[in-house]
């Protein structure tokens, strides 16, 4: 029996009374749509679980197993007598972990208070590491105090993103002592990572950034170990799997003599310049100092912006190692090289030049600072007569000069095992054509004769060249680390990385050798460096007073400290087959004789030490000229 139909009782009729049809086709379409959607999802799953399974399994393991590094202590650095120069000290660093799912920015005020870091500094650090992968911890602060450590421990729950790491930190000598030689460590930079030499380094690794620390980083750094630890997503250790112990870095013994280094640093006090002392028998570097200097402890600690700015904006470039990187006109020290060229060419022996305060060449007057009268090779050196050398240069011509200078290592790197050595410049006709696309003018040769013009050299090059001449024409590769301190492979790598002219021998007749060395000895007796005469020591050398501006510019400038010439001096003891050669550069130090005094200080310190050690009293004996072929191993100076 049917009751009156309300529309709800007669569902077959629509509200408007019209018959309705069930949209059957639509329902079929709906089935297909559903199936399609599910198929798409299955494809997504297929991609991940079938195609990508191995990849994701690896990622899952990476999630699960974390390598906690066991840091290897860096090798210490000693001088040649085993005295400690660079050490490590234990310290705690604080890192920020970013692989948590929380918003770190909310915690910054608390972190800033607890770790005593201004908030904007933390933000700068965060920005700096923004591009790095999230699992990489960010170093927030080094050398945290026990208070700060306690803060981190106390807030482990609220601040799980903070982590501490026990590290060893570098301790360098104070006040920038030997800073350029030793260098400093810092985090490896982007550019370095792109260099194949650093292929095995990771971002955040601490590497040497200059000096010995950089050159011998592979030896000093050791190999970090690690512990395989199972963690959950909060980094909480759930267990551990195993560990590999760290291999500590190797200690290094430098060729540096601490006493000689101290004398060199003391001599440079308050000046701008460089001092380098070599043992010409072997090429060992006994001292290497550069001023102004910087404090490497600031770099291995937390480098403040103000200190960094101070260093960068200092016009005298404290970071520059002037021993290997200052390329300046050598002035009269070049005359030794000129003398070798002149004598070996057979020209200088019989040259007699009348010096009347200068001479005219090609229509220009070239001045000499004194009227020397009649000059020959034997007094040209101690008197440092420019007129003589102008004449000699004119006779030899630039290319001959260049040939001898190059054979003595000018215009190329020496190959010292320190980074960023400069090569200086030795001009020649070919050089000028090549670099300036112009022919060489003979007039330019004249100033080259006295070590001005386009010729530039580093203190290291001069020390080696002149020391080599005094050794009879044998030049060694300068080095700061004894070759037997490192393995042959490492040594080869060092030589490859720091390429240069290395070992050299030039022809130098015994007679010429004697002429030059005796003349250099006369320099400190009666010549330009007479004021630096050292009693009881066969001290020889050559001064150099290198103009920093042309005479016209000088006249225009009106004087001032910066217009003073650079004072050079290369000295040695004894005069032949010296045990030590010292090159001094005193920028704007005026006369070369001023630098001679500094060299004398260094040499005196060295000789006194040798005497004390050998416990014998040496008489300053003039060594006889030995048999023609200079020996590779010299006879030590005995009494």
């Amino acid at each position, binding site marked *: *029996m*049917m*009751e009156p139909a309300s529309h*709800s*009782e007669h*569902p*077959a009729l*629509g*509200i*408007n009374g*019209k*018959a*309705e*049809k*069930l*949209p*059957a086709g*639509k*329902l079929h*379409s*709906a*089935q297909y*749509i*559903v*199936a399609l*959607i*599910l198929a*798409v*999802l*299955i494809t*997504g*799953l*297929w*991609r*991940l*679980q*079938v195609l*990508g*399974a191995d*990849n*994701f*399994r690896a*990622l*899952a393991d990476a*999630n*699960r197993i974390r390598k906690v590094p066991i840091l290897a202590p860096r090798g210490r650095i000693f001088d040649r007598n085993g005295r400690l120069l660079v050490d490590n000290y234990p310290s705690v660093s604080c890192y920020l972990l970013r*692989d948590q*799912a*929380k*918003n770190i920015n909310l915690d910054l005020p608390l972190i800033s208070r607890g770790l005593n870091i201004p908030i904007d500094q933390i933000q700068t650090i965060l920005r700096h590491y923004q591009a790095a*992968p*999230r699992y990489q911890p960010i170093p927030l602060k080094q050398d945290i105090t026990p208070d700060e450590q306690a803060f981190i421990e106390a807030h482990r729950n609220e601040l799980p993103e903070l982590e501490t790491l026990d590290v060893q930190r570098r301790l360098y000598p104070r006040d920038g002592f030997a800073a350029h030689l030793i260098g400093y460590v810092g985090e490896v930079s982007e550019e370095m990572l792109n260099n194949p030499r650093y292929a095995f380094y990771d971002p955040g690794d601490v590497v040497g950034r200059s000096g010995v620390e950089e050159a011998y980083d592979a030896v000093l750094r050791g190999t970090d170990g690690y512990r395989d630890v199972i*963690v*959950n*997503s*909060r980094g909480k250790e*759930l267990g551990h799997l195993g560990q590999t112990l760290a291999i500590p870095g190797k200690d290094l013994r430098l060729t540096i003599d601490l006493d000689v280094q101290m004398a060199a640093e003391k001599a440079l006090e308050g000046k701008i310049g460089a001092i380098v002392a070599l043992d010409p028998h072997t090429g060992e570097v006994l001292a290497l100092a550069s001023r102004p200097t910087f404090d490497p402890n600031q770099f291995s600690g937390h480098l403040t912006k103000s200190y960094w700015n101070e260093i960068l904006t200092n016009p005298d470039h404290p970071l520059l190692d002037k021993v290997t990187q200052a390329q300046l006109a050598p002035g009269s020290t070049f005359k030794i090289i000129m003398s070798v060229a002149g004598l070996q060419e057979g020209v200088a022996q019989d040259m007699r030049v009348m010096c009347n305060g200068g001479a005219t060449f090609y229509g220009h007057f070239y001045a000499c600072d004194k009227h020397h009268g009649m000059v020959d090779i034997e007094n040209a050196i101690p008197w440092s007569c420019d007129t003589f050398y102008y004449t000699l240069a004119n006779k030899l011509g630039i290319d001959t000069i260049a040939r001898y200078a190059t054979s003595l290592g000018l215009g190329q790197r020496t190959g010292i095992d320190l980074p960023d050595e400069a090569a200086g410049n030795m001009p020649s006709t070919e050089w000028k054509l090549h670099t300036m696309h112009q022919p060489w003018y003979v007039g330019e040769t004249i100033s080259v004769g006295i070590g001005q013009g386009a010729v530039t050299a580093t203190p290291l090059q001069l020390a080696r060249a002149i020391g080599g001449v005094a050794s009879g024409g044998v030049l060694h590769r300068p080095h700061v680390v004894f070759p037997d301190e490192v393995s042959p492979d490492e040594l080869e790598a060092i030589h490859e990385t720091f390429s240069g002219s290395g070992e050299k021998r030039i022809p130098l007749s015994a007679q010429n050798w004697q002429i030059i060395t005796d003349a250099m000895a006369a320099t400190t007796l009666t010549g330009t460096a007479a004021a630096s005469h050292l009693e009881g020591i066969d001290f020889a050398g050559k001064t150099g007073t290198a103009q920093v501006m042309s005479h016209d510019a000088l006249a225009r400038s009106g004087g001032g400290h910066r217009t003073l010439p650079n004072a050079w001096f290369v000295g040695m003891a004894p005069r032949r087959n010296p045990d030590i050669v010292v090159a001094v550069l005193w920028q704007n130090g005026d006369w070369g004789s001023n630098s001679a005094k500094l060299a004398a200080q260094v040499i005196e310190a060295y000789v006194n030490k040798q005497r004390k050690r050998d416990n014998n009293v040496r008489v300053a004996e003039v060594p006889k000229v030995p048999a023609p072929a200079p020996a590779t191993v010299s006879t030590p100076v005995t009494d």
Partner: protein
Amino acid sequence: MRRLSSFRDFDWVLLGFVLVLSVISVLEIKSATVHTKFHGFDHKQLGFLAVGLVLMFLISMIDYHRLIDIVHWAYGISILSLIAVLTVGTKVLGARRWIRVPGGHFQPSEWIKLVLIVAVARYFWGLAGRELTWKDIGKAFALVCIPMLMVLKQPDLGTSLTYLPILACGLFLGGIRFKQAAIIFLVIALLIGGAWKTGKFLKPYQKARLTSFINPDNDPQGSGYQIRQSLIAVGSGGIWGKGANKGTQTQGDFLPIPYTDFIFAAFCEEHGFIGALGVILLYFLILMRLIQNAQTASDLPGTYIIMGVVAVIIFQIAVNIGMVVGLMPVTGIPLPLMSYGGSSILFTFLALGIVMNVRMRRFVN
């Protein structure tokens, strides 16, 4: 004549599939939470399931036409409750989604889905037999979008999005023409583009969430991290999975919210591609069964109602599993019958109850 409704017509097959999924769900929730501070959630889920089953039976006994009759009122009350939420709702984590009622909290947005399904069904039933005019389409939009925008304002992007499939389904079944649909798509695309650019309608974290699925490493708020962990969990499960309770990502706490949004990821890690296929097969069977019920419904509104349920369910499946496998952004939409959560379970079972309702009355005349 009284409507013949007999529990013989209850869709026991459908219930069977649903129960299998529910059991899987409980087990998975247990595995995902056993070591965490959320342990015991599996018991809660059982509780929700029990209540859901009861409600399902209850609602299947009320003639759905009654529901259609009262839908006006229900709709009105829904709007009012949404207003109440926006004005006096409890603020939790910057969102107003609940209102305090004696005895607890009440989250209207889930219930409104049910109301909307019925309302849309009724609306299109009234238009039956004729072509949809733009005015009709406009009214349909208004019907759904008003509550949707109110929910969006709470803000609850995820839930508001689940209203859309109801509208889409209604339009589709109601006979929208291809041209009309295309125009609507274009307009929506322009609007979304505009809203995105001006940044006014989406909060920054919502924007970040929506884009981070393209590049998971790019997100500050962490949803990129979530997606990444999800992909790792799913992918590392491989073909056979790591075994129940042995998912390292889930157990090691790497997979975030593994008992709700990412429950499928946890499942995939443990049971692999084979397991995932199994679950998807179950969903397939459930949906096909639902559509079959729609086909055999005795009248148009019944069909619309069931298809509305289908639309919501397939939408949620697509968005949730899509998110888990990295095809969709993180939106917080739960996986029906799998994700832990009372609101989701209750909605699903009530919806199923209505489906049963329709099915049980299909022979009445």
